[in-house]
């Protein structure tokens, strides 16, 4: 299974990827996503599921079924856009609360055994070098926390120039 998480307007997304294959699930901004409130309920109340019910509570399970996760996000200050940030915050039920060490740093243990290729397409008109560097570091750090098998990062000055790359 593959998942695309994007912050594009649906018309724009459909023009970029008119036919979504049946093994791809697409997660987009319905305008109703709730922020994580840091309650850790997804670990110690209803393990594996977020306690906030808004259609985005099953991200942990969804990620467990993926071998590819692709993010399309505006790059803002070297970060993902708020919707994508929100989805990632709500994704911690994919992991366990317990800790482990990786390269001498603490991280969470994995709940599931799968791993996915993590690809991020960042768009943004006048990104600075510092912002690009921050964004690359962010994707690499997220890749470690989410046990991705590989990370790939692409930047596009114009949203339209993504079209070819995504098709």
């Amino acid at each position: 299974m593959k998942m695309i998480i994007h912050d594009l307007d649906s018309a724009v997304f459909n023009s970029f990827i008119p036919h979504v294959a049946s093994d791809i699930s697409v997660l987009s901004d319905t305008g109703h996503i709730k922020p994580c409130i840091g309650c850790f309920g997804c670990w110690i109340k209803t393990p594996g599921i977020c306690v906030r019910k808004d259609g985005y509570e099953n991200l942990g399970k969804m990620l467990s079924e993926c071998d590819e996760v692709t993010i399309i996000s505006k790059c803002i200050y070297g970060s993902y856009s708020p919707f994508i940030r929100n989805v990632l915050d709500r994704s911690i039920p994919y992991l366990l609360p317990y800790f482990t060490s990786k390269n001498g740093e603490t991280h969470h243990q994995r709940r599931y055994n799968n791993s996915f290729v993590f690809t991020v397409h960042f768009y943004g008109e006048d990104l600075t070098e510092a912002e690009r560097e921050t964004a690359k570091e962010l994707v690499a750090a997220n890749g470690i926390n989410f046990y991705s098998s590989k990370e790939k990062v692409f930047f596009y000055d114009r949203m339209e120039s993504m079209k070819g790359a995504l098709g």
Partner: protein
Amino acid sequence: MKIALMNGSPKPGNNNSGILLKKIEPLLGEGNELTSISTSGKELTPDQYRALCEMDVLLFAFPLYIDALPSHLFRIIIELERYMKEYKEKEVRVYVLINNGFYEGHQCHIAMKIMENWCKRSGLTFCGGIGQGAGEMMGTISNVPLGHGPLKDLGKAMVRISENIANGTQVEKRMLSPNVPRFFWKLMATHFFWNTTARKNHLNRRDILRKL
């Protein structure tokens, strides 16, 4: 000086960012006008955004979320960039107190850079700050005075940052782990934090580990 204490934790009630702000408050000295702003559970009003543009100092305290800023706070700083461009008339300096769950405070370094990049875009003066690891320990050790025990290094860094706020200079970015060994922190966090809370919710270890 007008200083805004921005609590960027989405947790309602007590949160570690709030504990850090409470600890630094007495160090900021006399004669300042302090405004505390919570970002948990509600949007900031246009009046609050405009008031932030008139501050001398914005002191942000927030938790690290997936190596970055919590999404609700990220929405706020994007909006604040817009307000700053329209209403800011003098220099506004920004200091940052990040706390993270893992032991190593240096995992906050990317979020610190995001704040720095935001300052550049918004015309604000980024003055650095602290990334403090093992943030969830703060609740249990909130009675320990700064500069003692597990808060030894944090105490020194907080004194330094408050001096810098007072005399308008920059602090470097200081990434700190608590002054307790990592194995001890891990043991406490695992048994007294996760397992104890889970038991209160009538869950055992198998429940916590479940796959869906």
